[in-house]
């Protein structure tokens, strides 16, 4: 009796184990079967409706969730294709994507893959965009990710620019103008002058350069882009390098020193200063310069009711020769990738959806509002003045500072080291440590990939 029960139980446990493993092959065999059926019904177009397929988008930007849900509903009402948009909780995109991709037929058909790290991790799941309608709609291929084999693995759907945002009204109050600032030396002169007169003026030069999690990426990522960009430009780098030389680290130090020494917040206090704080300082008119990007436009004009007329964005100057010819830093980490392991009709449905988003009225309007200018032919104008500035620089023939930091190996770990070093430097430590974290850190992380 006892033995019988024990046997049954062992069998049950074994069954549970096998049931779960065999479930996946079953799902996999179902998909091709459905696909051939769909392909068969696809051919006679007139009398049978094409296999519907579905779209499942795993979105990473919580702020854009509401807009995506509305757009999805509109598309479904229009075409009958079910579109599900799920937003991962902030900071958990990798985790959520991993769990969701495991679901076989119910996995996301559309997801984010924005840099080399993502490319490596998900390379088996990236559908080639070459030849698709949405790919043909792009105005520039600069913002796409390609595999070594030449396949277009992910397409950029918006680009952003960052630089130093300036409150021109306050600048004028301090007796200066934008025309004065054309390179690092002039930026430094203006900033130091404002800082020296801060009490009299009632505002300071730079906002706090906080190093907490909500703000440090501006410096370990965006500001660090400057030395990386110039070094890669000099050396003609077009793929992820194993090591970097740190040629422009002195320039990096120049601009960082400028930020931290000309602000109302003391350098030693930066560890816990947040992004919200810096934004509030700028929004409330307590500082003239605020390093950030085009995405700040809606907050500044909305929450803080700043006037678009008083806002401008200038390039980040750091003392490199010829930088008066620099434009803003433009690029993106927002790229769409389609799940190559999804059912063919789902892939087709997803591509159709994307094409609709970038060509239709509703889609382009939503994209312009949520993401700014998109590199597609039917893009709508945006009211974001920062993009006007970016375009102005391009029109004047100035060079675009591309996002060299997209090449960073083990980007989060590398940035963590740089942030630690910069925070400690600001609190009185040595700059050599920052150079070590920057340069040696790159080599170490590259090797650890």
């Amino acid at each position, binding site marked *: 009796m006892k033995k019988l029960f024990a046997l049954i139980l062992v069998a049950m446990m074994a069954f549970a184990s096998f049931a779960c493993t065999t479930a996946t092959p079953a799902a996999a065999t179902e998909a091709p079967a459905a696909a051939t059926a769909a392909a068969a019904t696809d051919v006679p177009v007139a009398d049978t409706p094409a296999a519907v397929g579905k779209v499942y988008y795993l979105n990473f930007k919580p702020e854009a969730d509401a807009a995506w849900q509305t757009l999805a509903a509109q598309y479904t009402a229009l075409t009958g294709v079910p579109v599900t948009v799920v937003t991962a909780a902030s900071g958990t995109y990798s985790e959520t994507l991993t*769990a969701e991709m495991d679901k076989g037929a119910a996995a996301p058909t559309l997801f984010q893959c924005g840099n080399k790290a993502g490319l490596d991790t998900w390379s088996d799941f990236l559908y080639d965009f070459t030849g698709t309608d949405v790919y043909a709609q792009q105005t520039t291929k600069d913002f796409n990710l390609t595999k070594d084999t030449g396949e277009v693995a992910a397409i950029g759907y918006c680009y952003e620019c960052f630089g130093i945002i300036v409150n021109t009204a306050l600048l004028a109050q301090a007796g200066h103008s934008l025309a004065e600032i054309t390179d690092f030396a002039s930026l430094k002169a203006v900033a130091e002058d404002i800082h020296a007169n801060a009490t009299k003026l009632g505002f300071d030069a730079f906002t706090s350069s906080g190093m*907490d999690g*909500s703000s440090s990426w501006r410096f370990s990522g965006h500001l660090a882009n400057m030395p990386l960009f110039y070094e890669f430009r000099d050396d003609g780098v077009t793929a992820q390098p194993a090591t970097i030389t740190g040629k422009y680290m002195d320039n990096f130090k120049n601009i960082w020193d400028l930020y931290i020494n000309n602000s109302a917040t003391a350098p030693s206090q930066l560890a816990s200063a947040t992004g919200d704080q810096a934004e509030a300082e700028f929004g409330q008119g307590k500082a003239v310069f605020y390093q950030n990007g085009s995405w700040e436009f809606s907050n500044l004009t909305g929450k803080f009711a700043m006037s678009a007329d008083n806002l401008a964005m200038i390039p980040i100057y750091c003392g490199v020769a010829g930088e008066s010819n620099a434009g803003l830093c433009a690029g993106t980490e927002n790229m769409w990738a389609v799940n190559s392991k999804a059912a063919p009709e789902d892939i087709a449905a997803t591509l159709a959806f994307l094409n609709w988003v970038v060509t239709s009225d509703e889609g382009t309007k939503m994209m312009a509002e949520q993401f700014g200018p998109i590199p597609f032919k039917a893009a709508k104008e945006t009211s974001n003045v920062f993009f006007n500035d970016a375009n102005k620089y391009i029109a004047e023939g100035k060079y675009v500072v591309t996002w060299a930091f997209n090449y960073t190996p083990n980007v989060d770990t590398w940035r963590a080291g740089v942030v630690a070093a910069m925070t400690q430097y600001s609190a009185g430590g040595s700059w050599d440590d920052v150079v070590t974290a920057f340069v040696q850190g790159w080599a170490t992380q590259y090797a650890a990939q």
Partner: protein
Amino acid sequence: MKRERIRKSILTGFFIVICIIYLMPVFTVLMNSFKTNSSINTDTFAFPTAETFTGTDNYVNGINVGEYPFIKSALYSLLITVSSAALILVCTSMSAWYISRVNSLFARIVYYLCVFSMVVPFQMVMFTLAKTANTLHLDTPYTIPIIYLGFGAGLAVFMFAGFLKGIPLEIEEAAAIDGCGPIRTFFLIVFPMLKPVLISVGVLEIMWIWNDYLLPYLVLDRTKYKTIPIHIQYLQGSYGHVDLGAVMALIVISIAPIVVFYLSAQKYIIKGVVEGAVKG
């Protein structure tokens, strides 16, 4: 005698102070749920002033985040917590009784597996668990209790079995002689005797499940269901930006029912934990 009384009064006074300090964090949360974000950062312990008082703004923001009605998250949390805890208590107490009365090799193996399961880190099994739940369609709030039973059985079985070891067999034997089958014996006689442990295990399980974030986040069908901890997590915008005021507001809302429940039942709960703990 008088020295004794003075000493006791001093102790009472001492503990009053300690208790006030002990509850400061909770009180600070309550206060900060009515302040603006930047003032929470800069002046954490100050009372809301006219300038920093935000009324119910934080509560409204918190409840409305993510286009998902908070009341739905709250109801799912409640459903999952209550049904999982009930399922765990009933099933594991029965199993612990089986294990302690039928001391077979198999029962002992199950017991030791349970003990071992108490030390497994969730990270080790989280993706596999999510996939399994998805495959077996256990990813709804109505079926997730099975997952909780599976993952939480260890501690419960351990504590019940320990307690049961100390219960004399005579009563059960008497019941058996009177013709009671095992089911009646268990539910009419043993189960009531387990009240103290039921309460202490129940409290542990309820606290764990109500506050749990990672397991429901990975297991539940993301397109349809959220629980309170998940809802709070969505207050984190991109780039590490956290709406602290709304977080504080949601914390108050999520703690409130537990505190109310606890305050009303505390004598009962503490008594139960006291009686049940040591024998386990």
